[in-house]
């Protein structure tokens, strides 16, 4: 068994007779700030998992070492990486899929004893006892993908929509309800709606900007323009400065262009 920098290196075999296999680097997951979803002592960390490996297949493989609670992927090790990996993928009616590339995996076992067993595995075998691959690739995959994910069956989709919308309406109503009651929350903040006596203005970038503009406009109208001699002189000066600035800027551009040798016509 090869070990490298504290990682156990095992081959990942898609078929029993596979010769050139990817190497997966395993070790127990341990970092100072533990993620509650990846509990200490029960999580196995895998590096260099090929893109086509799925959560289910890993669950099956590591099921041989003990009961697996969860398998999660991420693009690289790190705090928010898992969330980023799965962002937008669980939602219904969305075409977002997790990226297809090399990744890391976290395998959470039910018992911490399973870790040792898992680390003792000689290889990660992605096939069942009869030698069939656990992964779907090729024609079968594309067919299933088309049938299952691309095409939507109308009446099923309709039911799904109405179910989802019912849930959504409920949530909306609850939120509206909460806005009306006007009670302070634990931190002492009160949620205010657009309506009612105590309505605040909408906290949108566009609204804020409009207000800012209004303030600036008010400010401006109070000023006298081009009135004092020094103002006029300043404005002239300003003009020169701007022309000069532009000239300098263009000169710099030319320098840049010069470097790319664009002045030889032939």
């Amino acid at each position, binding site marked *: 068994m*090869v070990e490298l920098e504290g990682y156990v290196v095992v081959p990942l075999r898609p078929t029993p007779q596979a010769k050139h296999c990817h190497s997966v680097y395993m070790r127990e997951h341990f970092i100072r700030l533990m993620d509650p979803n990846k509990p200490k002592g029960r999580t196995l960390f895998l590096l260099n998992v090929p893109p086509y490996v799925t959560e289910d297949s890993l669950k099956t493989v590591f099921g041989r070492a003990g009961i697996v609670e969860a398998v999660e992927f991420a693009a690289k*090790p790190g705090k928010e990486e898992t969330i980023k990996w799965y962002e937008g993928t669980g939602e219904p009616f*969305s075409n977002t899929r997790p990226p297809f*590339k090399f990744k890391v995996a976290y395998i959470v076992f039910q018992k911490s004893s399973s870790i040792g067993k898992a680390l003792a595995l000689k290889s990660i075998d992605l096939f069942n006892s009869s030698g069939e691959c656990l992964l779907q690739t090729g024609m079968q995959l594309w067919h299933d993908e088309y049938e299952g994910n691309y095409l939507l069956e109308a009446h099923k989709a309709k039911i799904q929509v109405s179910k989802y*919308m019912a849930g959504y309406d409920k949530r*909306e109503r609850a939120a509206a309800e909460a806005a009306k009651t006007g009670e302070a929350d634990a931190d002492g903040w009160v949620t205010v709606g657009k309506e009612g006596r105590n309505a*605040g203005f909408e906290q949108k970038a566009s609204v804020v900007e409009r207000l800012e503009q209004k303030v600036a406009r008010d400010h401006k109208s109070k000023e006298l*323009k081009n009135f004092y001699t020094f103002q*006029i002189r300043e404005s002239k000066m300003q003009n*020169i400065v701007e022309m000069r600035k532009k000239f300098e800027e263009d000169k710099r551009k030319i320098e840049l262009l010069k470097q790319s040798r664009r002045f030889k016509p032939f």
Partner: protein
Amino acid sequence: MMLKAKRKPGKSDRIPKKTSKKADRADSQEDSSAVDHLHLEQSTPSSDDGFDEPEPTPAKKNPIQVTTKPKNNKFKQKNETKNVKPPTLEEMKELRDTQNLFHSNLFKLQVKEMLEELQLKTKYMEFIDSWLESFTVFTQQLKDGLMERTNLEVPLNLQQKPSGFVFSKPTKEPYLIGAAATGTLLGPKIVVDVALEMPKESLHKEDYLNLRYDQKRALYLTYVTERMQESPNYANDQFKFNYLANNPLKPVLELTPVAKQVTKHLQVRLFITAPLSSFKPGRFVPWNNNIRPSFYGDEWDEEEPLPSTQHYNANVLFDLTLAENQAHLEKAFKGRRNFQDGLLLLKVWLRQRELCIGYSGFGSHILAAYIVYLNSQRILHQSSSSYQVARTVWNQLANTDWTKGISLAPASIQTEELTKLASHYDVCFMDFTGQLNFCANVPLSLYQRVREEAKLAVDLLNDMKLNSFPLIFMQKCPLYSRVDNILKITNYSCVNQMLMLHSQPKFKYDYAKYGYPQLLQLLTELLKKGLAERVQSIIPLETATTAWLVENKAPSIGKYIQLGLILQPDHAYEVLNKGPATNEDPEGAAEFRRFWGERSNLRRFQDGSITEAVVWGTAQDSPAKKRQIVRQIVLHLLEHHLQLEGKDVQFIGAELDQVYRLSPWFKVNKLKTKLILDQDTDAEALSPHVIRCYDELARQLHGLNGLPLEIVSISGTSPIFRYCEPQPVLPQARVAGKHILASHVQRVVIQLGQSGKWPNELTALRALKTAFLIEIGEKLEAQCRLQWVMSAEGLLVLKQGFCFLIELAHSKELALLKQEVTERGVTTYVDNPASRTLERHHYILPKVSGALHSLHQSLSAFGPTVMLAKRWLATQLLDDGLWPEMATELLVAHLFQQRNAPQAIAAPQTGFIRFLQLLAHSDFTGELFLLNFNNSWQEQQVADLEHSYRSDRQSYPPLALATSYDIQHAGRLWTSDQSPSQRVLGHVTRLARHGLQIIETSLMSKDLRFVRPAQLFRGSNEGYDLVIQLKPDLVPNSLSYDLGSPFVSFSQPNFHLPPAGADRMARIVGQLRSAYSDFAAFFYNPHGGKELAIVWRPPTDFAPKPFKVTELQACSPCENGKVQVLKETLLEDFKMLLKDFYLRISTPEELKREQREHQQPKRYFNAKQPQEKSSLKPKKQKIQKDAEQEAPPKKKRLIKSSALKALN
């Protein structure tokens, strides 16, 4: 919207104030410094002097900012003062000049840079001076004497050999002429023209007649050359003769001096001239005859006046007046840097347009004389800047007409009436002596062309939204790429036959039997009459003659002609030529019949008139067929009038257009459809069917009853709706079970009427959208009997054999995607990749699509050009993932905006050649392609964009495109860093250069035929490391005309219909790219390619590297605790992902060998064995490859292969 900040209402009010102030400060850093300056300078009395009245607009804006915070000054004084020193008067003047004269400093500075670049090095100047000095000494040592037999050939190709010739030594010193005299020599090959005057004594009184002068001139040149060769001074130099401006009567000596450092770039040309007083004045006026018919053995009716030989006369006059003209020019240019620079600019402009080449060329000496003319007319001032000189010349060129004649000679000298002189020539510009017409040989069409180019230059300069510098000076615009069709006659016997039988004798005398201008005259006259308003102009395409060694015989030239036709797109493809009505104008009708011969028939038209007419096709013909009409006409005319058969001439018009035709393998008659389809139809002719079907669908959608919200807008976004789909789309889509099968899916975006009830959550919104689309589908089925299937992307609808994908756009979806909440709890809307994609698909693409559609409506060559371009890119194995299709369309649209040429492109083939030029010569890092549809970008916006583009180039993708519909995403919407990547861009540039080179050589060569489509539209098989062959029956062929894959020979095509919207190849390759692009690049032909070509990254990427957790992708451990990526493992991955699809993996070399041995490609059922072998073979191959890469690359390789190697 909820908010959580109620307790401190004042706070939010204050925040904006603060930020606005901050912004102000940032804006007006310069202002405050200006104030500082003022404070500092107030003590000095001169502080106000330099300031003139400011321009009104900035004055209004600025002082406010200045006055808002005078307090800040104290703090800023120290670091900002250096920026504002008081301007000197000179600086003021310069600043103001640039502002007023040029639109931007940029243009001025660029011109300045270029002029500096063009400036001749002093070593050349010194060399020229010393050379001339020594040559003067040499000529003085020449002795008079009888010229005996020389061992040199007299550089003149005439039947009559002269008898004796007495050389008399020159009495006048040789002098510089042309560019060398005016100080406007132009690299890279510097040609110094030197004139040597024959003394009067060498010439007899009678020498004006029958080319005797020209013979003496040639003999004189030969004699001087021979003496020069004998002289030790010139012993090592290279002596060659050449014809000046392809004129066989004007041999010159081309001498390449062997001297250190100058020999590569410098050449001296020796002219022989004669003094003006050699002949009686008025001997060479245009209406005199100086070559008698009897000279050519012809008979001439004595009572008829002798035919005038104005062109020959001008040729002689050119020599005679040279000294005087030169003196005037020199006087005007000497010491005037501004005029010299102005002329240099004009020369660069002219040479880039190739208008100055050959016998009929518009030489740059004409421009030099014109500058002097404008100066004498007080249109150009002595002190005008170089830019003003160039600009004024363009302006005057564009707006004056020389056909009536203009003259440099003062009224006292100009004895003959200008109009009388002008009547003998197409274009008339008399010289200082009032005798020579500078433009004697310039045909009218070429002069018009120069005028149009000049007009374009002025327009470009006036366009404030444009950096016109590269367009005017930098861009190469070879003449052949500015014409739509080319007629090439190279067959020697045909040319002779035309000259013998059809050229009028008076032209023979006029041009001294030189064939080229006679042919030009003959053909232009005929074609102009025949093509009439179909053609805008017919311009000669000449190539300069090559020099020959002095010992060799002078070549005979002019037995070959190439004409470029610029078509008038509105009329060129009309199917009918209508003659005069028979009953009203019987003579005209007879003439018409004579002219058109058998093709002319008497026809009765709907308006009741009965006239002679020629019909070239029917109104229902496909556009491609109509484009053949001009060819038909030209060939018919040549045959009818000149007895030239089609095989004797080459008409280059639409050779490449076949690549978007329907594949001949697909039999249209097996298709069940109501449409009437031809077997030889093409993508262009099929597009309207789809569009018509879509229009009907749109009507049905609008008419749907009982929808909760009505459909307010429907727009098609697929390329076919703007005639840009190069693959023919036939009505073959059908329903099978619960699927729709279709090879193409046309995307349609609909928008619904306003409603406030849409949910505020993304998923809920999408759920509702799905429900809505299903509702539409059900209604369509119930009310219009259309079949539909719901998919994740939208609603698939089948109509008349075409499949449409209806998507629902909703602005709230976009808003929700963009929505972000800042830390302060303010909701902002920020663009992100997902929102950008959605906005592009649902909002911007429909608008751009509409704009491109209308572009095609006005310029019908746009669509087919895009088709050619797309087909070309596809056959070079570049798919949408590597090079976005929209980029192609927008680049072609950029070409069709009237910026690049004075006239619209009428032939797709020309458009395609220009597209290749654009790819080959564009500076992608420096240029942003802006498509200002409807001119909606404002000047300031364009300037800002340019500024941001230049200063922040890194943040833009390698190829930046912007349209007027994506101002807020400018440059980043259509392309990204990955597509096309820098590498692919470089690759495409090299491919385009290679393609252009093939085209150019075939066009410029006398013997070659024009390129065959297969030469351009089949990729190279070199440079790829591996080829994965896919099972041919699993990948359907495209319907477009296939010229073969670069790797394997033709196999039986299959036209299976895939499930609609599956687009399997694109998805598979997309997957491979997303996972393995760090290790390899993948190429395939999106138009039905059945091979996947792979190029590995350079070997350094596969070298062992230290263990790093973040860089461990695909690595296996190797020795010393290092890790390494193994290609074998990756290959196993590819095989696994392509399971069921792939046939085998091999190297291109193996495939090639197999092709040579005519082996049947192995079928997948017996492919098991080779598979295993091939998995081993690549390793060997790789070792070889690595070795090869270390060795210096072989030069003989095709450009393409080296191009691909550079991809690594």
